[in-house]
């Protein structure tokens, strides 16, 4: 049993180190700026929710969260909708140029956002989509759609083809088979894919910042407001940062039971 104990201790130390920076931000978020700059204390001696109240009562702040959540959701839906049929094609059929197209798709996942930032700005201003949620959602498709195809293809290849064949013999059409039988079979995979799309769209900064001005401004860009002529408002920055953890934590909570199984089924 000694070995198991050691493992647990090592894991415990790692988790503590993982939480320390987050705890420190929580600590900062519950203090006023004067208090923060005054003395270093391990916990807030005089906790205050002033920073959080500040954020929840100022539309410029809370709309940042709303905007981010809108484009992330739209992006996840688009990515799944277009990736599902394509992943099916790649996992079931061989067609002219399939592996080349697959690799080409993946190369877009590796595209440096910095390369695309300025052309995207020009493209979306030309077609009049600048500063809209859909612009950011579409821009994030650049890396999320290839990723979604990649993950889904792995899951689909784990389902034996006999299932498709049986269904077709039973008279199912491809769309009906796909929606009523196949998608329920790979729902763990769909969940994992949605998780990854949500994650990469939610955490991205460069496109979201470049393509928005005011109406669709994401929280990441709003957070720069804490830098002012009088210096940083550390308390407010920390509170805004803490609030950006909430959607991610919620998503993890919902997929926690599927995660191990989901990861295990895909691409192994």
């Amino acid at each position: 049993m000694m070995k198991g104990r050691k493992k647990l201790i090592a894991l415990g130390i790692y988790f503590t180190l993982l939480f320390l920076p987050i705890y420190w931000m929580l600590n900062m978020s519950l203090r006023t700026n004067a208090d923060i700059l005054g003395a270093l204390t391990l916990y807030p001696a005089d906790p205050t929710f002033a920073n959080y109240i500040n954020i929840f009562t100022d539309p410029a702040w809370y709309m940042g969260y709303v905007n981010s959540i809108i484009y992330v959701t739209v992006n996840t839906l688009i990515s799944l909708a277009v990736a599902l049929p394509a992943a099916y094609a790649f996992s079931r059929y061989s067609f002219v140029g399939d592996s080349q197209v697959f690799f080409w798709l993946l190369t877009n996942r590796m595209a440096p956002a910095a390369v695309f930032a300025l052309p995207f700005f020009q493209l979306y201003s030309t077609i009049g989509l600048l500063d809209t949620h859909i612009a950011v959602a579409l821009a994030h498709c650049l890396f999320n759609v290839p990723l979604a195809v990649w993950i889904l293809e792995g899951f689909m290849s784990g389902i034996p083809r006999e299932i498709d064949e049986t269904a077709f013999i039973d008279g199912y059409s491809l769309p009906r088979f796909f929606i009523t039988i196949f998608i329920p079979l790979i729902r763990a995979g769909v969940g994992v894919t949605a998780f990854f799309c949500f994650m990469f769209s939610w955490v991205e900064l460069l496109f979201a910042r470049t393509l928005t001005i005011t109406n669709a401004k994401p929280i990441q860009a709003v957070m720069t407001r804490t830098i002012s002529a009088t210096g940083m408002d550390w308390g407010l920055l920390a509170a805004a940062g803490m609030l950006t953890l909430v959607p991610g934590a919620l998503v993890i909570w919902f997929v926690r039971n599927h995660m191990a199984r989901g990861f295990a089924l895909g691409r192994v």
Partner: protein
Amino acid sequence: MNKWENNRAWLLTVPVLVIVAFSSIIPLMTVVNYSVQDIFGPGQSLFVGTEMYKNVLRDARLHEALWRQFLFSGLVLLIEIPLGIALALAMPKKGWGVSFSLVVMALPLLIPWNTIGSIWIIFVRPDIGLFGAFVNNVLGIGFDHTARPLDAWITTLLMEIWHWTPLVALLAYAGLRAIPEVYYQAAKIDGASPWATFRYIQLPKMRGVLTIAVLLRFMDSFLIYAEPFVLTGGGPGNSTTFLSIYLVKLALGQFDLGTAGAFSLIYFLIIEILCFVFYQVLKNVGKGTGT
């Protein structure tokens, strides 16, 4: 695996191709367009051919950024992959601990990248940060990530490891879970040591997920932008100016579109080539051991 041959399957991939072509080929063409011109302002430009590419290849600061980037990505892979595997091996295999470890592990992955930068500024600043204050006052070592290049590097690396090791761990864990119990029973009967079990059963079986882990970590660390941008702004001096930061400085900061365009294409090409090589090598490594 033999698949059904059917060229009509192309139709199923059309939505993906349209959407990715729209957000990839059109902008890339714009970049190509920039890269052959010297742009002074709206409507004023001069066709210069390959001049910009020559500029890029001669740019000493760019070379520095490139080597810095290779060093950074190399260190990231060297630390995160073994650490991630070790964590996956240490994670519980059943009970409530599984869900708990997974949730905790996944948390840093869902924090927006600029928040990651902010968390670490707050954490390492010598005046208000726990880490900064601890190193400076308790250990008595001068530490300031805004003043000393080495400290900036240590901070950026720590942040990167803190942020992304969980992804490697989660993938490796998924790979471990997929190994059937009979393999372990066979190893036990043969009296295999834990190391032998790891070397000849677990590691080969994790090949698939580790390929993904290495590729993802390499790509993303090679493209790193937001976290060091928030944390150090590429400084002190240029010590943490990685490729993306330098590129954004060129394109949006100095509005030097021609050079930025040429740089972009070369940058993109380097990534494609490296990923292709990695992909091929990792695929063949596993085949060699007969698994």
